[in-house]
C-alpha cells in the first residue's frame, strides 16, 4: 500500500462520509464529486488510464451536474429538513447497508475472478478494450445505448412545452377578453 493510495483512500472516504452527513444537499453533491474524483484516482493508480479519465468525464462532468440540476429544478429546496436522529431511519439504513455489503462480499468471494490470476496490464490496453467492447461485450453495450436513448427521449418528452394543458387556455382566454373589449 503506497502513500498515494492511503491519501486517496482517506480523501475518498472522508468526502463520502461528508456526502452522507452534511445538511445542505448541494454540499452533499459537491462532496460526492470529490468521492468520484477519488475513485478515478484509484483507477489511475491501477494503470487503468482510460477508465479513470472516463470516470472523471462522465461522473464529474455529467452525473454530478445532472444531480445538481435535478436538485435545483425540483421543489424540495436544498436544505434538508429531516430530523438528525430518527431511530427508524437509522435502523433500516443500517440493515440495508449490511445486506448490500453482505451480498456484494458474498458475490466477490465466490466469483471465479478470485481464483484466476490478474493478468498484467498490456501496453496496448486501449485497443484491447475497444476490441472487446465491440466483439465480446457488444450486447451489453447496445443495451446500455438503448437505455440511454430511451432516457433521452423521455427527458425530451418531459421538457416539451405543454401546449394542450394550460398555455392554450391562457392565450385563448386572453384573446377572448381582448375580443370582448
Amino acid at each position: 500500500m503506497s502513500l498515494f493510495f492511503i491519501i486517496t483512500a482517506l480523501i475518498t472516504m472522508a468526502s463520502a462520509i461528508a456526502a452522507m452527513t452534511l445538511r445542505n444537499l448541494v454540499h452533499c453533491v459537491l462532496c460526492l464529486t470529490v468521492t468520484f474524483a477519488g475513485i478515478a484516482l484509484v483507477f489511475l493508480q491501477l494503470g487503468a488510464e482510460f477508465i479513470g479519465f472516463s470516470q472523471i468525464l462522465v461522473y464529474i462532468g455529467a452525473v454530478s451536474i445532472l444531480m445538481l440540476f435535478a436538485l435545483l429544478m425540483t421543489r424540495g429546496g436544498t436544505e434538508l429538513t429531516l430530523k438528525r436522529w430518527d431511530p427508524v431511519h437509522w435502523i433500516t439504513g443500517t440493515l440495508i447497508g449490511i445486506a448490500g455489503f453482505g451480498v456484494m462480499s458474498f458475490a466477490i468471494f465466490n466469483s471465479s475472478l478470485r481464483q484466476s490470476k490478474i493478468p498484467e496490464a498490456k501496453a496496448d490496453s486501449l485497443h484491447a478494450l475497444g476490441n472487446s467492447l465491440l466483439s465480446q461485450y457488444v450486447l451489453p453495450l447496445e443495451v446500455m445505448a438503448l437505455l440511454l436513448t430511451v432516457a433521452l427521449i423521455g427527458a425530451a418528452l418531459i421538457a416539451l412545452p405543454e401546449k394542450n394543458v394550460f398555455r392554450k387556455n391562457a392565450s385563448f382566454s386572453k384573446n377572448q377578453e381582448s375580443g370582448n373589449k
Partner: protein
Amino acid sequence: MWFEELLIAIKHYLVLQMPGSLQPVGSAFLSCLPIMTSFGGLFALATLLERKMLGRIQNRYGPNRVGPGGLLQPVADGIKMLTKEDIVPKNADHLIHFLAPLGLLVSAMLGLSVIPFGHRLIALDIETGILFFFAVGAASELAIFMAGWGSRNKYALLGALRAIAQMISYEIPLILSALSVLMVVGSLSLSDVVQAQSGGIHTWHIFTPWGFLGCILFLISTLAEINRSPFDIPEAESELIAGHMTEYSGFKYALFFMAEGVAMFAMCALTATLFLGGYHAPFPILSFIPGPVWLFGKLTSLVLLFIWIRGTMPRLRADQLMEFAWKFMLPMSVVNLIAAGIWVALDGGVAAWISSGLLNFVAYFGWSRILSQASRFSPRTYRYAEEAGVSE
C-alpha cells in the same frame, strides 16, 4: 528539433542538480513552470491585443495611454485588479465562492499539460491524452455551478445554469468532431496525432473533407465552450448582468477572465494539434524554425480569428443557440464521423476523397436547406413570461 533538444538538455541538467529524492517532483515542476508562465504572459498580451483589435474594428484607438502604444496596459490592469476590494456577499457560501475561480483556472491550466509544444516537448505524454483534456475541461462546468450557487444570488445562479446548459450542449459536437481525427489516426495520444501530420501541409487534417468540416465544427463548439462571442450569452455584459460572475470582484473576477483566456489558448492549441499539424512546419524546408514557434504562431492566428469574430458577429439569442447546437451541429458532426469512417475504410485514396467529400457536401447543403425552410420567422413565444403579463 535542435531547440527542443536544447530545452530538454537544460531541464535534465537542472534536474540533476537537485538532491535525489526531490528529482521526480523537480522534474514535474520544471515541466509545469514554462507552461504556467508563458500562458500567463500570453494571456496578458492577448487582452491588450484584443482591445487594440476591437478598437481598430470599431474605428477607435483602444488603450494608448500606458506605456508606448498602450503596451503596459495589462500591467496597469493587473495592478488595478489586485488592489481592488474583494467583496463577498454576506449570505454567500464562502468556501464555494472562494473555490470556484480557482477550480475554473486549474481545469483550464491542466488541459495545457497534454498539448505537445514541440518534438518530445510535452508535459504529460499519456496514451489517453485527449481524453484527459476533455475530462479536466468537464470539471469547469462544476466550477461555474459553484460560482453561481455559492454567490447566493438569483441572477448568478440563473447565469450559471444558462452557461452550463450551453457548455453541455456544445460539448457533444466538440468531442464528436475531435473523434473523427482520433478515428483516422487510431490513437488517443496527442503526440501520435501530431506525428500523423508530420509530412508537410498536405498531410494536415484540415485539408481532408472530414478534417475541414470537423475543424469548422470544432472551432464553433470551442467558441461556445469558452463562452466567447457570438456565444457569450453566459456573461453578455451589455444585456444581462455578468451571469455567474455577478458577485465577484477584484482579483477573483480577474481569475475568471484569466481562466477564460487560458481555456481559449488550450482549445486553440488543441485545434492546431488536431487539425493544423501541431508543431510541424507547413513545408519541410522550414523545419529549422523550432516547433514551439510554429505551434504558438498557429495558436495566435486562431486567437486573432476569435477576436475578429467577436468584433464582427452579433450575439446569439439563448434559444437560437440551443437550436443551432442540437439541430445543426450535432447532426453535422455525426455525418462527419461517418465521412471519417468512409475515409478509414477506403484507406484515404482518391475514392475516399470523393465519397467522404460528397457525403459532407450533400449533408451540409441538404440539411441547411431543410432547416432554413422549416424555420418560420415568427416572433418569439414566451413560455413563462406570458402568464406574468410581461409580453402585453
